[in-house]
């Protein structure tokens, strides 16, 4: 930098750039004047630091604070100099400021100085001024408009280097206003004979039409004629300009489709013409131009059979003739492949392209493998079979040390899985899952389960695979995997024991993987009796006694590694075993009481509730702990599409995130346990003073069910009840007049069901059908209240899956007297044309002692005869 400061060089520089230009600057008299001025100035203030010295000083700074101090001092000096309007050192100061700007310090106060330098007639000043303008100015400041005039002058300058400076700057900072002002100048420059100017003007034109697309029209003829040039730089920039135009306007795109033969010719010349040293890169002539032309061909050939046809040959030629030993050749091949895949090319050519990409996968250069995987991933849907042929190479890439390569090959593998190759691919992917970084495990495990579900050759393989995924992915797998696995196991009736044995084996080796342990606990709970009975027909069945199983559960329950959710699963398994095991009941009761005073409220409650079940008659417990009913696949799917990934099973074990009801103590509980109370004769549990919230995702489920609101209750005993409101907007059932307000208590054919029982409020369903085959069902609801206080404003609402039609009749009243001294009845009419298993979600509103209470629950325990 210091060399600019030497006067002699400054002038000499300008001189040779163009002797006639600035001739007056060279006149000795002027020179003397300037020298005198400088001497005068020096007396007033010392010469500023040179850029070189500033850089040294900044580098010598030990700490960031030191550096800041140096920069701040220098900035202050520069500001002073600027304020002094010192023209001598303006250049040097601006150069320093640009350095400071690069380091990230504010440098906007140099903007006006840039303009002053740009307006100077001297080349050096202009050069630094324009450099400053490029780096410091942007479209936000009005300052940049002030530069327009200088730019206009310089674009018409006779010296090509001055014009070039102006073009470079315009290309970087041109705004909408400038575009309109200077488009004419640029168009003129595009037509000059000077290649050095033309190539820069073409890129300025790109900027201008980007800013003001209306101006495109005027550049089209010039752009077309640029393609006749020989100069590589001009060709390259002309292709850029045409690309830009094609992207901006479909009409222009059509227009330029006619140029395909010419572009093909240029490309052919590049490949065929001999060695051109200037643009040669490792034996490939002008790869940058080749790549740009291929890209333009892609845009022109896309969606156009004729244009595509015209370029097929040259693409094949490039694809076969390009040297592949160096990166540069592969860059061209890569671009060729992209073009082949994107235009309407012949199928043979497409296969050729996929094969080139397949060959890339074997390349030593990781960058080339990366682009190949990336591209294959994009084309795998369109060219499935061609990509399938490179499966083994793709699988090899799973072992690549580079993370991004691993990720892409994993995705590609999943895209390639089909019925024929699932066994081998899943085997590879399981190995990958076992060893891969944690960041991949969630994705990989979910995709594996999905693939297994879609293409599994048989049930046993399916279950084996899912269990292996659980073992390998461990705690990284997503939450929904537990529930989908349980669903899968439950469906596969013939393999219950086998699955449970596998799980027990796996958990014995490793109790850290929570999802695995949870699934295992669930299975033990459900199928514990079969497990111990040794009914397994496998080669090496596990010999397990009741105590062995309980040992295992105990270990899980007391282990510090187990999460609260896992412990919950284990507790539920233990309570379920109480009806499946016969010799170890005392131990089971002891295990259940472990968490009687646990800090986790959920576990504590579970423990207490399960323990209290032993106080009930055995028949109730047996009913409660019956095997889970088979879940309908469609229900799960519906739930899943609703974003309800916690499939229904989970509701039975884990009730999370309940909305708290009022300020009453949160009392989460497994509502299904109570819902399952199938014996209406059972004495109700002790009324609890707390109000509990139920179903964790009732609202989710409501998303896919029809909802009928209860009709406005009739005023009874002088209490005006609130009219029922719909849970969901837009779903209404017309309130119907009371048809039958008399409860029909004893229905002979179907047992009554307790649909809800909580806080002293009990709702019993009785069923009636016109004939056993009829799809129509009438449910008579009877609500009673065993509290000491009466319940007011009682409103019952219900929702059923979509395949049902539900009609709620008006209730007999809205007031529930205390101590079971009265009841409210309501008729529910259900039409079940598809004979689907009946499920129902309930929502109850009432006021107790002035406090409004909302309860939600799901009823799953309808007798199967109702729809069979």
């Amino acid at each position, binding site marked *: 930098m210091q060399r600019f400061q030497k006067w002699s060089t400054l002038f000499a520089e300008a001189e040779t750039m163009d002797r006639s230009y600035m001739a007056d600057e060279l006149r000795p008299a002027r020179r003397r004047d300037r020298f005198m001025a400088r001497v005068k100035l020096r007396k007033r203030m010392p010469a500023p630091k040179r850029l070189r010295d500033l850089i040294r000083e900044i580098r010598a700074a030990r700490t960031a604070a030191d550096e800041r101090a140096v920069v701040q001092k220098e900035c202050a000096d520069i500001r002073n100099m600027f304020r002094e309007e010192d023209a001598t050192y303006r250049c040097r100061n601006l150069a320093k400021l640009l350095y400071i700007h690069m380091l990230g310090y504010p440098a906007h106060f140099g903007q006006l100085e840039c303009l002053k330098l740009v307006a100077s007639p001297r080349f050096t000043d202009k050069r630094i001024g324009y*450099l400053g303008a490029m780096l410091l100015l942007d479209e936000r400041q009005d300052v940049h408009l002030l530069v327009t005039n200088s730019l206009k002058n310089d674009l018409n300058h006779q010296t090509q280097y001055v014009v*070039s400076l102006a073009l470079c700057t315009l290309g970087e900072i041109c705004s909408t206003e400038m575009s309109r002002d200077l488009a004419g100048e640029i168009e003129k420059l595009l037509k000059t004979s000077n290649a050095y100017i033309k190539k820069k003007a073409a890129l300025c034109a790109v900027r201008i039409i980007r800013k003001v697309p209306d101006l495109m029209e005027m550049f089209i003829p010039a752009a077309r004629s640029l393609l006749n040039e020989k100069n590589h730089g001009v060709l390259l920039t002309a292709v850029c300009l045409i690309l830009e135009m094609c992207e901006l306007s479909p009409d222009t795109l059509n227009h330029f489709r006619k140029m395909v033969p010419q572009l093909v010719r240029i490309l052919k010349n590049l490949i065929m013409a001999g060695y051109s040293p200037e643009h040669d890169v490792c034996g490939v002539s002008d790869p940058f131009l080749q790549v740009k032309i291929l890209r333009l061909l892609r845009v022109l050939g896309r969606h156009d059979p004729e244009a595509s046809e015209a370029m097929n040959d040259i693409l094949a030629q490039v694809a076969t003739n390009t040297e592949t030993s160096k990166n540069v050749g592969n860059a061209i091949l890569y671009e060729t492949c992209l073009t082949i895949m994107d235009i309407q090319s012949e199928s043979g050519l497409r296969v050729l392209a996929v094969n080139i990409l397949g060959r890339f996968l074997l390349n030593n250069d990781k960058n080339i493998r990366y682009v190949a995987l990336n591209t294959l991933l994009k084309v795998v849907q369109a060219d499935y079979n061609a990509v399938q042929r490179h499966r083994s190479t793709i699988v090899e890439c799973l072992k690549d040390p580079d993370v991004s390569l691993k990720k892409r090959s994993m995705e590609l593998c999943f895209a390639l899985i089909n019925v024929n190759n699932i066994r081998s691919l899943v085997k590879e992917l399981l190995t990958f899952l076992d060893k891969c970084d944690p960041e991949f495990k969630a994705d990989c495990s979910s995709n594996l389960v999905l693939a297994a579900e879609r293409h599994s050759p048989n049930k046993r393989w399916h279950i084996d695979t899912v269990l292996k995924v659980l073992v390998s992915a461990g705690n990284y797998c997503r939450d929904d995997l537990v529930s989908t696995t349980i669903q899968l196991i439950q469906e596969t009736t013939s393999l219950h024991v086998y699955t449970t044995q596998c799980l027990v084996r796996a958990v014995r080796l490793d109790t850290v993987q929570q999802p695995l342990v949870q699934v295992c606990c669930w299975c033990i709970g459900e199928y514990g009796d079969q497990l111990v009975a040794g009914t397994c027909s496998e080669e090496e069945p596990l010999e397990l006694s009741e105590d062995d199983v309980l040992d295992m559960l105990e270990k899980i329950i007391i282990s510090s590694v187990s999460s609260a959710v896992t412990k919950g699963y284990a507790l539920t398994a233990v309570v379920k075993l109480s009806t499946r095991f016969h010799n170890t009941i005392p131990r089971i009761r002891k295990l259940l009481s472990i968490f009687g005073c646990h800090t986790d409220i959920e576990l504590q409650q579970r423990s207490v509730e399960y323990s209290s079940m032993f106080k009930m008659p055995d028949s109730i417990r047996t009913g409660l702990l019956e095997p889970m009913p088979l879940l309908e696949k469609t229900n799960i799917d519906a739930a899943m599409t609703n974003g309800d990934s916690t499939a229904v099973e989970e509701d039975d074990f884990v009730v999370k995130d309940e909305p708290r009801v009022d300020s009453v103590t949160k009392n989460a509980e497994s509502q299904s346990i109570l819902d399952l109370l199938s014996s209406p004769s059972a004495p109700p549990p002790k009324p609890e003073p707390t109000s509990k919230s139920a179903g964790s995702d009732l609202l989710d489920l409501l998303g896919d069910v029809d909802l009928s609101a209860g009709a406005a209750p009739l005023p009874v005993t002088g209490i005006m009840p609130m009219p029922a409101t719909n849970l969901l907007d837009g779903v209404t059932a017309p309130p119907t007049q009371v048809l039958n307000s008399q409860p029909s208590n004893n229905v002979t054919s179907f047992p009554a069901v307790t649909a809800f029982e909580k806080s002293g409020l009990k709702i019993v369903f009785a069923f009636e059908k016109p004939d056993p085959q009829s799809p129509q069902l009438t449910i008579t609801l009877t609500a009673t209240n065993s509290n000491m206080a009466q319940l007011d404003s009682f409103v019952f609402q219900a929702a059923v899956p979509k395949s049902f039609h539900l009609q709620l009749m008006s209730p007999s009243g809205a007031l529930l007297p205390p101590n079971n001294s009265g009841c409210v009845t309501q008729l529910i009419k259900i039409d079940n044309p598809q004979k689907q298993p009946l499920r129902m979600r309930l929502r109850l509103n009432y006021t107790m002692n002035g406090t409004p209470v909302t309860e939600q629950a799901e009823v799953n325990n309808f007798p199967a005869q109702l729809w069979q």
Partner: protein
Amino acid sequence: MYIGGNDKASKATMIKFLLIVNKQGHPRILKYFDSLPNGRDESVRAQETEVIKKCLTVSDKECSFFDYTTFKIVFRTYGNMCFILAVDDDENELAVLEFIHNIVETFDKYFEKVTEHKIMFNLDRVHMILDEMILNGRIIESSKVQILAPVQLLDQVSRR
């Protein structure tokens, strides 16, 4: 199906910015080709820092590209210097890599073995060379002879 080009006319420039940093992460050359909506404010600088950090920590085993927000970073390390280019996400990475090499070769030819020192103390010349190579985020010229002609002419005159 578009695998290469993007029909959306959202690509203002091919190259978003060029960064030349040393192994310690100090910027030696920084040039934006895309106009920044809010200038080079805190968030832009934080982004630079993040990109630099990522480029310098990538191991030899990993490849020289990565996606960063809306664009793609292509970088290559030469001795003590790391050349970083941010490009559109549909750009040909291999060609960009080749272009970085072209820049380095041009510097090498001009400075007779380019070093961090030479780049740092000849900021204006480096910018001049870059301006001969890239304009509006697009390549103008790849021939070293033609790129260097104006710069060498200027040097000749200055030396006399």
